[in-house]
């Protein structure tokens, strides 16, 4: 990083911090703190929902995902617009009319205390741990590429936002997310524009897309279907898992995860909540497409220019310092020589495109694909070497690709802006998570079970203390994350294992009026055991686990209710 980058980085981060503190003034009670007195317009809801979903890893990982695996990741989001429609029809009106603070509060009104407590505690455990990991994940990438101390990076990544989140609650979170997203969009647009601008003379945007396409990176839609094949169910990203699995995942995330529910509960009316969610449905897929497209363009760019054999330089350095150094030097030389041949081949392919000579296009594409396979096999061997040197090392460099490009090729100043974007994206999602963790702690645990009748001032102050507690807890988790090893992945998986069952509980609450709390509670536990067992069998992609968990809860609850008494229950909405 050069001096101008540091200036841009510091000004951007301090500006956001000051804006967050400025927006904190004037809050005196708990409803203002958690829901901003239900006063937000739809466009703030939209930006807040988007800012909460888009973490730092979204912007680091998605371009790398397109580089490694192609554009097909976008299909993961196809179920989201459909989920927005269901949320607007069912979830939003009920949550608003009951004037709940948290999604779990509704479950006690509809079922009983144990169902509410189960879902709230699952949320607190999962979100508390994953917030720490979501601070650590971008921090380790930045510290690895820039040589920063990981502990200080964690503190800056997760610490500064605590100031405005504790002081300003939901309002500060939403308004800073608005500004953060504006900066993020500008930065990402500039990064995309520069990738195209840096292509060799004579290579247009269209040529770059064609190169990426010929090498299998423009695989946006995959429609193949074979329900008898195991690989179909294990395939994470195709149109079917995207539409069906993605729908259930988005419905769980936006309908039952307090970090999102807490955002649209701040809306001044049902109308504003609905508009915010619907607009999210309109913009999310194109936005992800645009971010992935940057990755596909970076892939094309690296066909013309030298790319490292492995994008995580720190991991390569460890191999260089080991007994594997001679083999690494040999493999790197082989990778570079393939790169030089590839450069000539890709230039011939572009010439064939310009001449519209189909025979040459086919021949050059075939040759280029063979060269691509050769360089991939060299990369694979380097990854094996990294694993031999350090069995705990991450051999997936997907998250490092975009930032590596930024640091190597973007002009002074813009590098600082892109680093700032990583911080801002982390701040946006972490701030919303802390606010939601505090609201679930105060509303579903502290006020419900510990101090039931205190003044509003007392709960307001407790809310601030809980926000501070969760902020510090997340930083502590981030500081110890490098010692957690494979537990990090376990934490990430934990969320997707529970989401389906929790969604099932909510869908029973909304659509099956005769089913009561006891049947639902035991069904959720039983369904969860099945989901964990299916996950352990490793026969299906995680997106389908949400569908299975949800359907099983509804089925078990319906069956169990046939054997249990139906107690009278008041109408809710």
């Amino acid at each position, binding site marked *: 990083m050069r001096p101008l980058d540091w200036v841009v980085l510091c000004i951007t981060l301090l500006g956001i911090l000051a804006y967050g503190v400025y927006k904190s003034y004037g809050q005196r009670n708990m409803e203002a703190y958690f829901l901003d007195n239900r006063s937000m317009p739809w466009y703030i809801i939209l930006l807040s929902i988007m800012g909460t979903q888009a973490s730092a890893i979204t912007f680091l990982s998605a371009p790398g995902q397109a580089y490694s695996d192609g554009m097909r990741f*976008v299909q993961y989001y*196809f179920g989201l*617009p*459909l989920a*927005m*429609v269901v949320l*607007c*029809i069912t979830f939003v009106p009920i949550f608003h*009319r009951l004037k709940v603070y948290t999604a779990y509060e509704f479950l006690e009104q509809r079922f009983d205390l144990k169902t509410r407590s189960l879902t709230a505690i699952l949320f607190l455990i999962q979100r508390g741990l994953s917030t720490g990991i979501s601070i650590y994940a971008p921090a380790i990438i930045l510290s690895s590429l820039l040589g920063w101390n990981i502990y200080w990076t964690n503190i800056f990544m997760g610490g500064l936002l605590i100031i405005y989140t504790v002081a300003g609650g939901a309002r500060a979170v939403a308004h800073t997310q608005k500004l953060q997203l504006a900066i993020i969009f500008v930065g990402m647009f500039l990064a995309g524009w520069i990738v195209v601008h840096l292509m060799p003379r004579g290579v247009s945007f269209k040529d770059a*897309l*064609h190169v*990426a*396409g*010929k090498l*299998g990176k*423009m*695989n*946006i*839609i995959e*429609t193949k279907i074979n329900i008898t094949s195991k690989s179909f169910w294990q395939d994470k990203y195709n*149109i079917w898992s995207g539409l069906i699995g993605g729908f259930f995942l988005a419905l769980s995330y936006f309908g039952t995860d307090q970090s999102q529910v807490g955002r649209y509960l701040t809306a001044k*009316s*049902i*109308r504003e909540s*609905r*508009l915010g969610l*619907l607009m999210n*449905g*309109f913009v999310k*897929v*194109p936005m992800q*497409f645009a971010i992935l497209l940057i990755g596909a363009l970076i892939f094309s760019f690296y066909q013309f220019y030298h790319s490292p054999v492995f994008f995580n330089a720190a991991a390569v350095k460890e191999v260089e310092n080991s007994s594997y150094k001679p083999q690494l030097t040999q493999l790197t030389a082989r990778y570079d020589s393939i790169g030089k041949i590839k450069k000539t081949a890709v230039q011939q392919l572009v010439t064939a495109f310009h001449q519209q000579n189909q025979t040459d296009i086919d021949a050059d594409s075939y040759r280029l694909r063979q060269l691509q396979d050769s360089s991939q096999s060299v990369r694979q061997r380097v990854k094996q070497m990294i694993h031999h040197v350090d069995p705990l090392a991450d051999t997936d460099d997907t998250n490092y690709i975009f930032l590596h490009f930024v640091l190597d090729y973007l002009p002074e100043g813009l590098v600082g802006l892109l680093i700032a974007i990583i911080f801002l994206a982390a701040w946006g999602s972490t701030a919303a998570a802390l606010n939601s963790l505090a609201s679930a702690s105060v509303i579903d645990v502290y006020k419900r079970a510990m101090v039931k009748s205190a003044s509003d001032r007392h709960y307001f102050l407790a809310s601030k203390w809980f926000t501070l507690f969760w902020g510090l807890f997340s930083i502590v988790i981030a500081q110890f994350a490098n010692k957690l090893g494979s537990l990090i992945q376990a934490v990430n998986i934990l969320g997707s294992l529970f989401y389906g069952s929790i969604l099932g509980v909510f869908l029973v609450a909304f659509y099956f009026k005769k089913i009561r709390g006891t049947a639902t509670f035991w069904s959720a536990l039983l369904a969860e055991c099945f989901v964990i067992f299916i996950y352990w069998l490793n026969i299906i992609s995680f997106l389908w686990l949400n569908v299975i968990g949800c359907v099983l809860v509804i089925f078990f609850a319906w069956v169990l209710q046939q054997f249990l008494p139906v107690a009278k229950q008041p109408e809710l909405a």
Partner: protein
Amino acid sequence: MMHKLTDDNMDKPPLFRHWSGWYWLLIGWLAVLILLFYWLTIYLS
């Protein structure tokens, strides 16, 4: 009753008479995007 009327007025969608208009528009938008992406996949492969 009054509360219900206020709630309904606050919930009127813009541009359309009913929210279902927005829902169909969003589903249509998704369909258009999928078709566009499908065409791009074929065109660039």
